[in-house]
């Protein structure tokens, strides 16, 4: 049994212009200790997928139209709010992109970590304090005991993200969802946080869903990758295969449009056009309007995610032509 098994997850949002689907038929599974990268741009549905798993989509306006989210065999979509709350923390925890807005400015970081401990375990004040200090040390906050009484504004961006990680990890979750955890950080701090995440994975054996728009972060951390575009999974592969043999034209575009340090090109290979608004997604393959390989058949039906080889799947009717 997989740690997490998401099948055909479909959600929508009620907007001024009617109901718009956010993600459609998203399916993937995750094993214990595995790092799954979900890569996509704005509107791809990667954050909505994470919030749906956590049961944190605001309902209304959001609605789960179908599918299942099985965590250790239990379907989270059918759980009561109370049971879901018990699961968040020791079962699944999440860190967000913006550590400043995710921390409460009027409580010390110590209070915020201990609040999480107390919500799930009956520890004495003294024990939960010790546990919080231990966790702060683990995420690399120097002088942890004195920092316990600091307020969020007294910390730098990188330290705040470490505190967020401490709150997320203090109950030893089996699954950590990290939604763009380093996007707001500078590159030297990003390297520190990514390394910390990998170390904590090794130490606690937790699984991680790493959500990012940055292929470098994927290359640095993921075991397996899910590529999302306009609400759908367009490709799924082990990380080495994805970088060696990307199949979907969108994945290939993403990999070649970003200038890297080890290549010299006169001109970048740009993906034409822009991301479609959720209410204005093209028919058929969502990427067809921007795809240089598109043929008329591409806009007829939505291509299913098909396995090609070695657990490598792509949703493109022309994949056979590229091989």
């Amino acid at each position, binding site marked *: 049994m997989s740690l997490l098994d998401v099948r055909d997850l479909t959600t929508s949002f009620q907007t001024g212009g009617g109901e718009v689907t956010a993600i459609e038929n998203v399916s993937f599974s995750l094993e214990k200790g595995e790092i799954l990268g979900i890569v996509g*741009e*704005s509107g791809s549905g990667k954050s909505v997928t994470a919030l749906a798993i956590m049961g944190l989509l605001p309902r209304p306006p959001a609605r789960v139209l179908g599918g299942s989210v099985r965590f250790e065999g239990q379907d989270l979509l059918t759980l009561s709010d109370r049971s879901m709350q018990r699961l968040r923390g020791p079962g699944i925890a999440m860190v967000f992109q913006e550590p400043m807005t995710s921390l409460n400015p009027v409580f010390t970081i110590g209070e915020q970590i201990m609040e999480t401990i107390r919500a799930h375990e009956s520890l004495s004040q003294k024990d939960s304090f010790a546990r919080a200090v231990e966790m702060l040390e683990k995420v690399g906050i120097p002088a942890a005991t004195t920092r316990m009484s600091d307020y969020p504004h007294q910390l*730098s*961006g*990188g*330290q705040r993200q470490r505190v967020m990680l401490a709150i997320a990890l203090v109950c030893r979750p089996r699954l950590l969802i990290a939604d763009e955890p380093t996007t707001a950080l*500078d*590159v*030297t*701090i*990003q*390297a*520190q946080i*990514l*390394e910390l995440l*990998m170390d904590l994975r090794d130490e606690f054996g937790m699984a991680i869903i790493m959500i990012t*728009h*940055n*292929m*470098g*972060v994927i*290359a*640095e951390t*993921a075991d397996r990758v899910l590529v999302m575009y306009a609400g759908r999974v367009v490709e799924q592969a082990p*990380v*080495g295969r994805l*970088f060696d043999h990307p199949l979907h034209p969108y994945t290939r*575009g*993403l990999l070649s*449009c*970003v*200038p*890297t*340090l*080890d*290549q010299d*090109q006169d*001109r*970048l*290979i*740009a*993906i*034409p056009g*822009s*991301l479609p608004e959720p209410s204005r997604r093209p028919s058929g393959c969502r990427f067809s309007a*921007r795809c240089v390989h598109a043929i008329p058949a591409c806009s007829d039906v939505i291509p299913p995610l098909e396995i090609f080889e070695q657990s490598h799947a792509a949703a493109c009717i022309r994949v056979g032509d590229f091989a």
Partner: protein
Amino acid sequence: MPALLEASGLTKHYDVETGGFFRRSKAALRAVDGVNLTIEPGETLGLVGESGCGKSTLGRLLIRLIPATAGRVMFDGMEITSLGPKALRAARRAMQIVFQDPFGALNPRMSVEETIMEPLLIHGSRRGAASRDAVTRMLDMVGLAESARHRFPHEFSGGQRQRIGIARALILRPKLVVCDEPVSALDVSVQAQIVNLLSDLQTELGLTYLFIAHDLGVVKHISTRVAVMYLGKVVEVADKRSLYARPLHPYTQALLASVPVTHPSQRRRGTIGQPRITGDIPTALAPPSGCRFHTRCPHVMPICRTDEPAMRQSGAGHQAACHLIAADPPM
């Protein structure tokens, strides 16, 4: 050929109030602190550094969008730091800026035509057929449809809005364009379009760019030379190839070592690679003594804590401010 722009001792201090409500005191935030920099005609000078290092402030100082606390800037043979308002406005024709946020930089109540035409009107052109033709040429040049003319910013995607911002900056045919993080607010699949557009326009119009960014890959792609900033100081300047192949300053080395790998097979984890730097960037309110990087530097020596290193030449066109560098013998 003489430099298009030459800055010397350029400094910008902001007075900020520190302490609590009842214990107010004033301190100087040293955003830019004694920067010397030249920009050659036709080149793209990349300016990199982490948030708070002063790179955007420096970009604005160089074209005098904000006044300097000290130092001077020679632009095209003219000292712009002491120009009066009238002469400054005339000089501005030749220096324009493209901002990071294409959502905040455009007036939502102005149509695309008005937005792009406004600089012409400010500089004395009349709202006539000639100005409208100029807008038409700009729309074509930045890859926007003629039909965009009467639409408003909110009707466009981020990439298209950035095209509008570029058209507005270029309609006066400036010599120097400061591009302040022009692609970092855009989705990655759209960034390449804008980078390519900026390159094409540079060739077509003979532009000189100061390209400010934190993305070292984009900077490497577009720049001729690159300057690295840390806490208000330029710590290294070099030809692009030289800087990326042979970074001299430990900060530049650390920055490059922090960039995520491009292929999973290059993961450095568990291997003994370059020492990663630890800690955060100190505050510009009280920058460290001596070399400002000494608090995070893996190679720190006693002298670094007391003496500020001067810029030293090491190889053709490659300069860095670090006590570890043995200067080239004087020629």
